[in-house]
């Protein structure tokens, strides 16, 4: 059953308090714009999990304590299936997106270990997918990494050309975690289906925001990206393609993933799925998210030297990836954080030497522009006032940083 909770009702209870370093905003609320990294838990999710704490039984136990716990999982499975529009028995609970991707990619590789073969992915995937593919390649499989266009999208024609008789799996994400760019999922999955190749979609960033049209193959989501708890996710299995399970023990999850279930996490995921289904069916919420995202994008684009990297069309409105000419994203993110604005640098920052994002480089951006890329990401809790304030603080921060190092290099 869907809860009747709306985002408006949820607001106010999830206020994000400032970290100690957010001295510019004490004692007010932080401005949280890193929802692609993780989202606050909704009150309805928290309530469901708190209630479930009373139910301590092992879902595999045959007695009444076990039955109660199994009942909670069954309900969450139905909620998740409703969100993803699949059958409940196609839902496999796991620990999140990384396990989901590994279970499909590595599991497919292991299932074909004796006959070998070929896999396909794209250049803009999350490291969970790319590194799992890299591992399978080390097992002896061939791997095609498809390029993307300037918007970060894979051309379905390119996929068609890359498919081979021995292709075992295609793994391409739905929405990119760094830019929000949506892949042409229907065309890509159709191309794989017509070639008789199973398709895996990393839909971690899409779940709870967009209806996902994948009807066959594998699909992976993670609860904490849509206001659920961390450490729990789902992979839907809508194919009978060979798949070797990776976790051994009992026959939980229809014998696809062993281990005593994370009952609390699964209950939280189910409650988050209920809330997400309400949002997806609410036309006003769909309009609202577009308005909030559009306001954020326009505001950031108006800052001196800003260049938006997220495509204008075919993109999650919640995600705005923007480069600030001549500035370093890691520095901007640190200064914003000290001022109470949580955003993310598009680069992977290792010690003193930040690395440009592989996603932005694959889109053809220069390393300098990629190193200046900051990601702002909203959720259903983000308000118009928060957007305006974050944009104002970002503009001031960028102006200050420009002033601080304008002369360097000519000295």
């Amino acid at each position, binding site marked *: 059953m869907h809860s009747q909770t709306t985002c408006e009702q949820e607001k106010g209870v999830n206020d994000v308090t400032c970290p*100690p*370093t957010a*001295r*510019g905003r004490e004692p007010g609320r932080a401005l949280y714009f890193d929802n692609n990294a993780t989202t606050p838990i909704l009150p309805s999710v928290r309530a469901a999990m708190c209630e479930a704490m009373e139910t301590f039984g092992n879902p595999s136990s045959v007695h009444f304590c076990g039955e109660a716990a199994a009942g909670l999982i069954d309900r969450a499975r139905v909620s998740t299936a409703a969100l993803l529009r699949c059958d409940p028995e196609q839902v496999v609970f796991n620990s999140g997106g990384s396990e989901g991707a590994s279970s499909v990619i590595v599991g497919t590789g292991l299932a074909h270990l004796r006959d070998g073969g070929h896999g396909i992915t794209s250049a803009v995937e999350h490291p969970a997918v790319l590194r799992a593919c890299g591992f399978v390649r080390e097992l002896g499989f061939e791997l095609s990494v498809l390029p993307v266009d300037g918007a970060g999208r894979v051309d379905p024609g390119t996929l068609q050309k890359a498919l081979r008789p021995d292709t075992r799996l295609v793994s391409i994400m739905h929405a990119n975690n760094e830019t929000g760019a949506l892949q042409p999922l229907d065309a890509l999955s159709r191309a794989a289906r017509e070639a008789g190749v199973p398709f895996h979609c990393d839909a971690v960033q899409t779940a709870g925001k967009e209806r996902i049209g994948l009807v066959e193959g594998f699909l992976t989501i993670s609860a904490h990206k849509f206001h659920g708890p961390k450490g729990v996710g789902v992979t839907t299995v809508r194919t009978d393609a060979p798949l070797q399970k990776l976790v051994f023990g009992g026959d939980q999850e229809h014998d696809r993933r062993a281990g005593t279930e994370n009952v609390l996490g699964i209950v939280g995921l189910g409650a988050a799925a209920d809330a997400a289904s309400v949002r997806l069916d609410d036309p006003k919420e769909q309009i609202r998210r577009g308005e909030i995202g559009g306001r954020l994008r326009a505001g950031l684009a108006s800052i001196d030297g800003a260049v938006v990297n997220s495509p204008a069309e075919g993109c999650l409105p919640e995600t705005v990836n923007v480069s600030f000419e001549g500035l*370093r994203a*890691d*520095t901007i993110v*640190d*200064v914003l954080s*000290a*001022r109470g604005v949580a955003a993310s640098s598009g680069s992977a920052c290792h*010690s*003193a*030497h930040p690395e440009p994002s592989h996603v932005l480089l694959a889109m053809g951006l220069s390393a300098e522009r990629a190193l200046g890329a900051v990601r702002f990401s909203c959720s259903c809790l983000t308000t118009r006032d928060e957007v305006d304030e974050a944009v104002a603080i970002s503009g001031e921060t960028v102006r*200050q*940083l420009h*002033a*601080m*190092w*304008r*002369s*360097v*290099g000519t*000295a």
Partner: protein
Amino acid sequence: MARFSDEIVEHFTHPKNVGELPEPDADASVVDPVCGGQVHLTVRMGDGRICEARFVAYGCAAALGTASIVAEWVVGMGPEDLASLDEAAVTQRVGGLAPGQSHCARLAMEVLHALADDLRTGKGSE
């Protein structure tokens, strides 16, 4: 420990003495080719000691905060004082540096020593 000391946060959110002095008595620039950090210091002297300093910098937030602290710190120092400062002294003055930020102390020390050299042999000693 926290990624940044309170002092560094204060200075990179509210940098002090930003800019370049016109016709300074001495100046120094250093670049760290590994981290890409850059600092340029300009100073004015009075009675053999620094009476005014300005900085411009490029780099991570810790490098910017450190540069701002240094520009404040050097006022009142002479060339021998600058030359005696090492990375440990800088680290202590900025309230500590997290792992991965030691390059900020090195950058600061190098610009302080370069400034001392300029004061001894360049415009500052004239």
